[in-house]
């Protein structure tokens, strides 16, 4: 027990991020972190498995989000001042912990690469067909790197502003679509039982496990007592957004939803205001960029911070640019083409992310809890 507190104290001293965010900012950051990429491809995948019950899937999927969140808060209860990387060393010892951390140092650039690649492919396909992928990817990563270099406070504030724009605009978009919606598409509900919607929930569930990022960010929240409440609200907001998105796709396109790669973009094409404002896809993409910017930023931030913590450095800022470049390289390494990305999302990626973002941290929490109890019993 004594050993623990000592280690924890030393963990406080080497805290490499001096800024703090509020619980509200933390919960706001998580919204685009889950939604930005899921809003693109998930409706189509869900439709494939769940059919007209697709709107139910996000609700099942949110259970995975709650589990991730529970694991993150459990770890943070054991070691309130440590991120996942630091607490793994405290739980598994120096060698075990570093090995566990290494796993994330390899996984984080990988998943960041996938996210950036998806962004790049989406932009090339839907907005700038003649612009090289490299230019699109590098410009975005550079902007995110500037954000991350400014520290968690700035990341939190930019997220606050862009999420407000993002949500306002998404709501506006859906309101404009009301004219074209056919609510009767929802019937029949549960035609083949709950199984299809459960199967459809795997993909959104994989996105929901990204809530484990809370384990990396919770030490930097200044009003911790509000964090649990706000995070629950955040999950609720994400679930609701997914359900609404799925409803809109279902009511608008029905069974055709799964034949489009980005159904929400198709939905944007339906918008027509007084026959004057038409073809608003470009604006929709521009607003969506605000969301994906928050997502990429937070992943690069967590990757950089984890690397600095793993190497026990005193500052992380100098790592931002080189590590962002590593993420760009991973962007090209993870897939050779758009079809690869789609294949990845439809098949192994979900299991991969669920294992690393939910199963492994759960095991870590379990070990930590058992160890803690054992020490307590011995000292008692």
């Amino acid at each position, binding site marked *: 027990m004594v050993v623990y507190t000592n280690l924890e104290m030393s963990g406080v001293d080497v805290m490499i991020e001096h800024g703090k965010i509020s619980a509200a900012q933390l919960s706001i950051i998580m919204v685009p972190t889950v939604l930005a990429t899921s809003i693109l491809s998930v409706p189509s995948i869900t439709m494939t498995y769940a059919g007209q019950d697709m709107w139910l899937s996000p609700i099942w999927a949110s259970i995975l989000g709650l589990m991730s969140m529970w694991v993150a808060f459990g770890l943070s209860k054991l070691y309130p001042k440590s991120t996942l990387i630091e607490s793994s060393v405290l739980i598994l010892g120096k060698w075990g912990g570093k090995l566990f951390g290494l796993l994330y140092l390899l996984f984080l650039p990988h998943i960041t690469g996938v996210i950036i690649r998806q962004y790049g492919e989406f932009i090339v396909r839907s907005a*700038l067909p003649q612009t090289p992928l490299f230019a699109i990817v590098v410009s975005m990563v550079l*902007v995110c790197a500037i954000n991350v270099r400014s520290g968690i406070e*700035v990341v939190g*504030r930019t997220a606050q502003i862009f999420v407000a724009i993002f949500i306002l605009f998404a709501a506006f978009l859906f309101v404009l679509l009301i004219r074209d919606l056919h609510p009767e598409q929802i019937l029949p509900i549960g035609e083949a039982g709950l199984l299809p919607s459960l199967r459809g929930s795997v993909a959104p569930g994989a996105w929901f496990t990204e809530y484990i990022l809370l384990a990396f960010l919770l030490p930097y929240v200044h009003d911790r007592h509000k964090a649990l409440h706000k995070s629950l609200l955040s999950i609720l907001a994400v679930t609701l957004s997914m359900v609404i998105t799925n409803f809109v796709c279902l009511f608008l396109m029905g069974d055709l939803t799964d034949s489009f790669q980005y159904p929400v973009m198709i939905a944007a094409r339906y918008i027509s205001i007084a026959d004057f*404002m038409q073809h*608003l896809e470009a*604006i929709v993409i521009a607003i969506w*960029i605000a969301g994906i910017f928050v997502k990429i930023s937070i992943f690069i931030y967590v990757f950089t911070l984890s690397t600095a913590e793993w190497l026990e450095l005193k500052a992380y800022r100098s790592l931002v640019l080189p590590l962002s470049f590593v993420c760009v390289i991973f962007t090209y390494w993870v897939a050779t083409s758009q079809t690869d990305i789609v294949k990845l999302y439809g098949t192994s990626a979900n299991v991969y992310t669920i294992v690393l973002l939910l199963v492994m941290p759960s095991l870590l929490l379990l070990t930590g809890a058992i160890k803690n109890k054992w020490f307590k019993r011995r000292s008692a």
Partner: protein
Amino acid sequence: MNKYTLGKKKSLSSRSKEQNDKLSTPLSSDLSTNEQMLKAEFHNNADVTFHPFQINHQTDALLVYLSTLCDTEQLDHLVLAPLLNRYPDNLPVHVSRLRNVIPLSKTQDILSLHQAVTAINIGLPLLLIDGSDTAVSYGLQKYEQRSIEEPSAESTVRGPRDGFTESISVNISLIRKRLKNHKLKLLNMEIGTVTKTNIGLVYLDGIMDPAILEEAKRRLASIETDSILESSYVEEWISDEPLSPFPQLLSTERPDVVCANLLEGRFAVIVDGTPFVLIAPINLFSMLQSPEDYYQHIWMSTFVRWLRYVFFLLSLLLPSFYIAITTYHQEMIPTVLLLSIAKAREEIPFPALVEALIMEIAFEALREAGIRLPKQVGAAVSIVGALIIGQAATSAGIVSAPMVIVVATTGIASFMIPRYSAGIASRLLRFPIMLLAGVLGLIGLMLGMIVLVIHLCALRSFGIPYLSPLSPSSSKLLTDVLSRAPAWKTNRNKVGSTRRR
């Protein structure tokens, strides 16, 4: 914050210190020695007058003053006349007795050569008496100054009409007149080793956050320069990020604006020699507010505020948006409009980006020419500009008519920003965003905006986040940003509340 301790002009200040050491020699009791020392210091100064005379026909005395800064009429009347006519015959002449002879309350005993030189420099007449090592200075300086006029850079339809002048004492009296309270504090300091400019830090005790005040004092004290000629010199020294295009201190000519800001817990820096008073800490939204917002009807003010926010964005983004749409996203333009734009652009040899750059630069040049020229010529500039840019360039097929409309709208939008210094940011940042829009379309525009928001999120003014109360958010203060809060609901004294977040 290191930059405040790293002196840029160390050599100069240390040199002046040596000089001060030489000057700090005490005055002698022998009048002719003193006279020689002063004459050596004021060598080649045509307006320094040495006036020797005798009191009671026995004691030698000397008056030294700058004839250009000293009120000689008063000097003759109040100092010289009593000494010559009314000095009691039976008493030996001594400095301590002068108080009973000369009817002036503003006096100061001068003990060293340095003090003597300083007093003469600021226009005080100096009286030296033989046999005494103490001299006396009298508060009889007289500066030429302009009377209080209506501020030309910030005019309002309704509201007070008096503006600051170049004199610091007049400016402070204008503030004191409005805030009749002993809690209104004034700290004086002298900055500039050569100009020795008088600078006043004004705040309201009890409302001002003490931590911000300490920071302000520390930054002002760390200024190491030889000259302060305008408050912008001070602004550059004490800004958090002097390289940011967004001003972190507000400059105003209006006493009512200063008072309103003092009441909200800000401090003001008054610099002698300029009517522009600095106010900090501020945020982005203080840049987009006009004093008149509080003098007119609530709904009107709210409407005007929103109009300003929209046009601020337009002045920043409209040309970029036009470039992005016409180059990359033509499908967004309604068909009829697209046809007319295409027809107008048909004979234009340049791509939209180049066209926009030409027009924007021409507009900025016209605007600059109009400001710097005398008023009579300024009118000619605008006529020529309107003819060339509006009419001739379009009919010659160099620029298209829609582009003229875009540039003109942008120009009007930038005139909507009530603070001149805030308009600078949108004028300068327009160009990089235009380039980004020309390269990546709306995505480039969005990336540019994101970088801008990152910068604004990271920016602070004396520790207060520049985007507060939006982010970090404070719903109480946000009321006065999204609308104009009614008088009974304004939340004064809240500037410091977002400091720690």
